[in-house]
C-alpha cells in the first residue's frame, strides 16, 4: 500500500500545470474573479481548448476520445484543475450522457452524438425530475406515444413537464426519461430519448432560486415529435440507462479537489478577517477547530474516493458505495459555505447582485458568500437526495 507518485506522474503533473497556466482564458478568469454571470460561450470556452488538446474527456474509452490515463493521472488532473480554480467541464454531456451512449447506444448514435459532446459543440441538459417525480424518479409521467408519421417514419409524440433542468436555458439537446408503457410497473415502462431542444412544442421556463440566480428551469413538452432513432437502448428499458447514469452522477459529486481549494479559500479569508480578540480569525480557537475538523473529514473522503478509484482501476464499476461519496462530498461542500459565511461576519448580509461589481461594500471576497451558502443546500437534494443515498446503502450494501 502506498501513495507514491512515480516520476512519470510527477512529469504529468508538471505538464498539466503548465498547460493550464499557458492556456486558461484570461477573460474567463477575470469574469470568475468578479463573480459575473457566465454566458454560454464562457462556459464552453475552456472545454473547447481542452478538446483541442484531447483532454476534455479523460474518463471516456480511448476509442471515443478518452485519454487512456491511469486513475492516478486522472486524479492528478482533477487536482490541478481545482488548484488553478478552472471552470468545471459541464457534466451533462461529458459525464452523464456520454457513458450511456457509449455503453447502450447504437453505432450511429455514437457517431452522431459523441463528437459534439467531446468537442464542446453541443450543450446538453437533463430531463429527469418532474413535479411529481423527484426522489421517486420511477413514478415519472411525461409520456411518449409511438406513431407513424406522414413521411412513413416512426416517431414518439412527447407530452409532459420536466423540472430542475440545470442550465437548460442554454441547451441545444436534452436527454429525457419518458413513459412509453403506462401499464407496466413503474421502472419497466420508461424509455430514454434524446431530444433536439429546438423541436416545436418545447418551452423552457426560468425557475429563480432563493439566492436570486437562474440555474434551473421547468421544461414543458407539448406534442413534441421525436424520431424513434433518437431512443437510446430498448423501448421500455430506459431505466437501465438512468440507473447507470445516476451512478456516474454520484461519483463526480464527491468534489474532493474542489473542496480542497474551497478550504484554502476559507483559510485565506479567515487569515484576513479579524476575530473578536482582534487577531486573525484563523487563530480564533473556535474557528480554527472547525477548519481542522473539516480538513480531517475531507481527508477521510479523499481516501475513501481513492479506494473507490483503485477499485475501479481493477475493473469494478462505480457501485452503491458511490453513495458514500455523494453524502460526504455534499456535506463537506455545504459546511465549507457555512464556514465562509461565518468568517465574513457582518458582510454576509449585503445583497449586491443587482448593484454591479466593485461596489466597495465590504471586502470583495464577501460578495455572494451568503448566496453561495443558500445555493449549496441543493447538493444534498439533487442527484438523489442524501436520504435516498442512505436508503441505497442500507439496501444494496448492508442488505437490510
Amino acid at each position, binding site marked *: 500500500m502506498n501513495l507514491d507518485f512515480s516520476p512519470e506522474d510527477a512529469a504529468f503533473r508538471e505538464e498539466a500545470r503548465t498547460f493550464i497556466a499557458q492556456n486558461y482564458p484570461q477573460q474567463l478568469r477575470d469574469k470568475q474573479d468578479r463573480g459575473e454571470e457566465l454566458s454560454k460561450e464562457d462556459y464552453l470556452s475552456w472545454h473547447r481548448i481542452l478538446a483541442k488538446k484531447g483532454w476534455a474527456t479523460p474518463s471516456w474509452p480511448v476509442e471515443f476520445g478518452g485519454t487512456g490515463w491511469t486513475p492516478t493521472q486522472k486524479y492528478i488532473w482533477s487536482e490541478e484543475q481545482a488548484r488553478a480554480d478552472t471552470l468545471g467541464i459541464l457534466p451533462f454531456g461529458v459525464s452523464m450522457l456520454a457513458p450511456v451512449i457509449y455503453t447502450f447506444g447504437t453505432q450511429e448514435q455514437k457517431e452522431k452524438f459523441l463528437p459534439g459532446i467531446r468537442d464542446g459543440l453541443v450543450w446538453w441538459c437533463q430531463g429527469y*425530475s418532474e413535479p*411529481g*417525480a*423527484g*426522489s*421517486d424518479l420511477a*413514478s415519472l409521467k411525461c409520456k411518449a406515444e409511438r406513431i407513424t408519421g406522414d413521411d412513413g417514419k416512426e416517431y414518439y409524440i412527447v407530452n409532459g413537464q420536466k*423540472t*430542475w433542468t440545470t442550465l437548460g436555458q442554454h441547451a441545444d439537446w436534452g436527454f429525457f426519461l419518458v413513459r412509453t408503457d403506462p401499464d407496466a410497473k413503474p421502472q419497466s415502462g420508461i424509455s430514454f430519448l434524446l431530444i433536439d431542444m429546438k423541436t416545436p412544442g418545447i418551452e423552457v421556463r426560468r*425557475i*429563480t*432560486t*432563493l*439566492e*436570486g440566480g437562474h440555474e*434551473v428551469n421547468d421544461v414543458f413538452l407539448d406534442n413534441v415529435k421525436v424520431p424513434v432513432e433518437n431512443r437510446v437502448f430498448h423501448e421500455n428499458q430506459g431505466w437501465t440507462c438512468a440507473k447507470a447514469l445516476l451512478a456516474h452522477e454520484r461519483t463526480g459529486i464527491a468534489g474532493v479537489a474542489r473542496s480542497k481549494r474551497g478550504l484554502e479559500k476559507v483559510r485565506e479569508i479567515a487569515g484576513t*478577517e*479579524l*476575530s*473578536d*480578540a*482582534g487577531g486573525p*480569525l484563523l487563530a*480564533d480557537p*473556535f*474557528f480554527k477547530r472547525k477548519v481542522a475538523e473539516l480538513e480531517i473529514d475531507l481527508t477521510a473522503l479523499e481516501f475513501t474516493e481513492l479506494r473507490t478509484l483503485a477499485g475501479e482501476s481493477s475493473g469494478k464499476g462505480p457501485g452503491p458505495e458511490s453513495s458514500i461519496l455523494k453524502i460526504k462530498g455534499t456535506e463537506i461542500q455545504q459546511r465549507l459555505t*457555512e464556514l465562509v*459565511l*461565518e468568517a465574513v*461576519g*457582518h*458582510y*454576509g*448580509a*449585503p*445583497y*449586491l447582485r*443587482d*448593484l454591479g461589481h466593485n*461596489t*466597495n*461594500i*465590504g471586502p470583495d471576497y464577501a460578495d455572494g458568500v*451568503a*448566496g453561495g*451558502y*443558500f*445555493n449549496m*443546500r*441543493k447538493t*444534498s*437534494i*439533487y442527484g438523489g*437526495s*442524501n*436520504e435516498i443515498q*442512505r436508503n441505497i446503502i442500507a439496501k444494496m450494501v448492508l442488505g437490510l
Partner: protein
Amino acid sequence: MDFSFTEEQSMLRDTVASYLADHYSFEQRRDALKAEPGWRPNVWKAFAEELGILGAPFAEELGGLGGGSTENMVIMEELGKSLVVEPYLGTVVIGGGFLKHSGYAGASDLIGGIIGGETIIAFAYAEPQARYTWQDLKTTAKKDGGGYVINGHKAVVIGAPYATHLIVTARTGGGQRDAQGVSVFIVPKDAKGVTTRDYPTVDGFRASEVTFENVSVGADALIGADGAALPLVEKVIDEAIVATCAEACGVFRKLHEGTLEYTKQRKQFGQPISQFQVLQHRMVDMFINLEQSISMTYMADIKLSDSDVERAKGAAAAKVQIGKAAKFIGQNAIQLHGGMGMTDEMAIGHYFKRATMIESAFGSTDHHLGRYENLSLGKAA
C-alpha cells in the same frame, strides 16, 4: 411560577397577527421589497396609528402602552412569522432602549416621535474591523467647543435607508479596543457630513454603509455618560438579542409548520413523505429545537431585569440556542421541501434566509458561547 401572558399581551399579539394576516402576505411583502423604497411607510403608519404598537414598551405618561421587554417579545415573534422588514427592532427596541435607560434629556420628545411613527432609528454600531466586539471602535467623537465632531465608517447599518436618526457608537477617549472611552450619540441622518451607501440585504431588509465626515453635533447629541457608555450599549444590545430571539421563534414556527404541511401533501413512493420515519424524526428534532428556543427566549426575557452578569448570561445563552436552532431548523426545512425549498417563489426559502441572518445578528453562536464561558467560568480559567 407563571409563563402565561396577560390578557393585554394576548390581545396585543392578536391585534398584530390579524393586521399582518390582512396586510403582510408573502406576495404583498415580495412586491414591496422589489419596489422602492423597499419597505412600506403605510404599514409603519398603521403600526403607529391603527395598532398603536410603536408605544408598546413605553410608559403611559409618554403616550405608550406601559409595557416592557415582554411586549417587545410578543410583537417581535409575530413580526417574525410574517418576515416583517419595517424597523421595529431598530426604532422601538434599540432606539427606545437607549432613550429609556440613559436618562437622556430629550428622551420624551424622541419617544413621542417614535410612538407617532415619525421618528425612525437605525443603530450604527458595527465596524468593518470589529467583528462582534462592540467597543472596538475606530469611529471617533472629538470634543469641539460645546459639542463633538464625529468621524468614522459604520458597517451594514440595518434599516439606515428608512431612518430619520442614527444612534452611533463612537470613541471619545481611550484606545481602539478599550472598554473606557465609548460614547453614544444620536444624530439626524440628514446632518451635514453623514453619507450613506444603501443596498438590500439577502434577507429582504435595506441597509447602508454609513460614513461620518466631520459631523458636528451639539452636546445634546450625547446619550448616556461621556466615555462610559459601554454598559449601556451592552444592555441595549442584550435587549435587542432577546427581541431577535423572539423574532426567530416566529420564523422557526413557520419553518416547522410549513415543513409539516408540505411533507403531508407531498407524495413519493405511493405515500405522503411524512410517513417515512427518518423524516418524522427529523421533524421531531426540528420541533424540539423550536421548543427549546421558545424556552430560552422566555428565560432571557426574564433575566433582562436581573443583574448585568445574569442578564448578559441569559442573552448569550439564548442566542447560542437560537443560532444552533436556526441552522438545524432552517437547513432541514429546505431539505424536506426538496427542490421546491430552493425556489424563490416559495415562502420557505425566505424564512430560511432570515433564520440564517439571525444566526450572526448581534454576534454569532461562537461569539456568544465564548461570552457565556467568560461570564460563567471567569476569564482567567
